[in-house]
């Protein structure tokens, strides 16, 4: 090929090159790369949270695995990211609420255990050992179960010693007062007699 032919060929090819198209393609590739990098960061962030939400994200995860188009891939990862976070926050809130409820329950059970201990000590003059529940225990459900069993046992022991007046006595010790009415007055009198026999001073207050 002669030199002048070569020069003509290069000039011809140069005319054919669409500079704007190349620039656009390059921009697109760069954008895709950036989106992929972002997707990787998102996946890193939700890596552990995805384990908790396995069932809920199963479908979209399968879609991601079967896609090779970078644009679709990053869109799907964005959806996965939002879904996982929503699911995780919801589960976390549910867990927090459950924990709060269990701790509240433990607090109530401990209060009741202390109440029974108080009845034994201050009414019956007996010292009993109780196991106070730990609201920081790993298995709170088991702790609650232990507390309920313990309470049941103590209640039964008290029932034998106090009799039918026990619920009224629990109410009295719990709130430090009971309302006397036609329905319960004979039971109250019996309880007052029982307490006086145990050497406990009772004061009576008229509410009107």
């Amino acid at each position, binding site marked *: 090929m002669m030199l002048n032919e070569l020069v003509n060929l290069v000039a011809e090819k140069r005319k054919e090159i669409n500079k704007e198209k190349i620039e656009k393609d390059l921009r697109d590739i760069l954008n895709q790369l950036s989106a992929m990098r972002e997707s990787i960061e998102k996946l890193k962030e939700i890596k552990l949270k995805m384990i908790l939400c396995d069932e809920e994200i199963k479908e979209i995860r399968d879609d991601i695995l079967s896609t090779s188009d970078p644009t679709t891939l990053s869109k799907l990862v964005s959806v996965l990211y939002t879904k996982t976070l929503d699911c995780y926050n919801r589960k976390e809130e549910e867990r927090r609420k459950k924990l709060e409820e269990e701790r509240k329950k433990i607090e109530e059970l401990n209060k009741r255990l202390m109440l029974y*201990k108080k009845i034994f000590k201050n009414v019956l003059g007996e010292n009993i050992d109780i196991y106070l529940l730990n609201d920081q225990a790993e298995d709170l459900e088991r702790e609650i179960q232990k507390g309920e069993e313990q309470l049941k046992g103590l209640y039964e022991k008290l029932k034998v010693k106090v009799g039918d007046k026990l619920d009224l006595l629990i109410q009295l010790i719990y709130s430090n007062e009971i309302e006397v009415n036609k329905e319960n007055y004979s039971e109250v009198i019996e309880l007052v007699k029982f307490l006086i026999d145990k050497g406990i001073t009772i004061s009576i207050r008229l509410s009107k």
Partner: protein
Amino acid sequence: MSDVIEKIKEIALEEKEKANKLRADIMLIADDIKKLDISFETVNGSVVEHTACAIDGGKYEFDLGDSYLIMAKAVSVTGKYGEVKTIPPTVIRDFKIINDYYGEDEVKKNSISLMLSLETSLLNNANSDIIFIDGPLIDPPVYDESLDEYFLIRSSIVKRKKPIGIVKRFSHRLLIKYLIGQGYELTNVRESYLVTMLITELRKNVKNKESVFLGWIDWNKIFKEGELLSDLNSLEKAYRKFNSPMYSAYFQLSAISPVVRIDVITQEGIEYVKSWGIEGEKEVTILNKIADSLAKFKEEEAKSYVALFQTLRGTDLQSYLSKF
């Protein structure tokens, strides 16, 4: 090896159970506190202008080979409330030689006696409105016949001067004895542990910076009623010999400060402890803190006395003096 681990695990679990049961007992006592004739209160009273001093003592025993040289000193630090003023402390010292065939315990006992005699002497000369002393008023809190004369003197001075004893390390189960008398079951628990836990429980509705006290425990009632706890036998003998009213309260300057026992012969003075108090310090008051640091024998100080003694004993005064 696994047997050992199992054994340790078993003991740890037992201790955990015990601590849990004790926590319930302490919560019950805290709940019942208003029904008992000791009270838990915040210390709110203010104090007028006054002078106060703190008395503390220190001791050092040095083995000379054939005998012990014991050194003791007592320090009194005085302050005027509301004024920042430096008043030189009073320091007195005494020395004694004890033959070591009595054994180490006897040597220690002697050095404590020497130190307490010096402290008592400073107490006798103290003329501040308020006097704090480091340790219990009945000190040593045990009795033997050799202390007869000392107890007689100290008791008469204490009755006259009415000092406030600040007991940092308390172990006598005074509160436990009182609570057992009220029907609580508290065996195998240390006084310091019970008191700290109880005050922590009672403090739940009190601001952290508030000073609180739990008392007064009347020693006469403690020793009069019910069966004595083994650790109180010797203290009771000392108390009877001391022949003075005695009341104790537990005091905590703030939630981050240690709990101490306050011993007095009349149920007053807590507000003065508070007014001189510094947070977080086991000596409680600034005066006691200074007295404590001055009363400690530094090794160099003790060794220079030993050197002086050895030189003089060897009648080699010249070689001793040549060191200076």
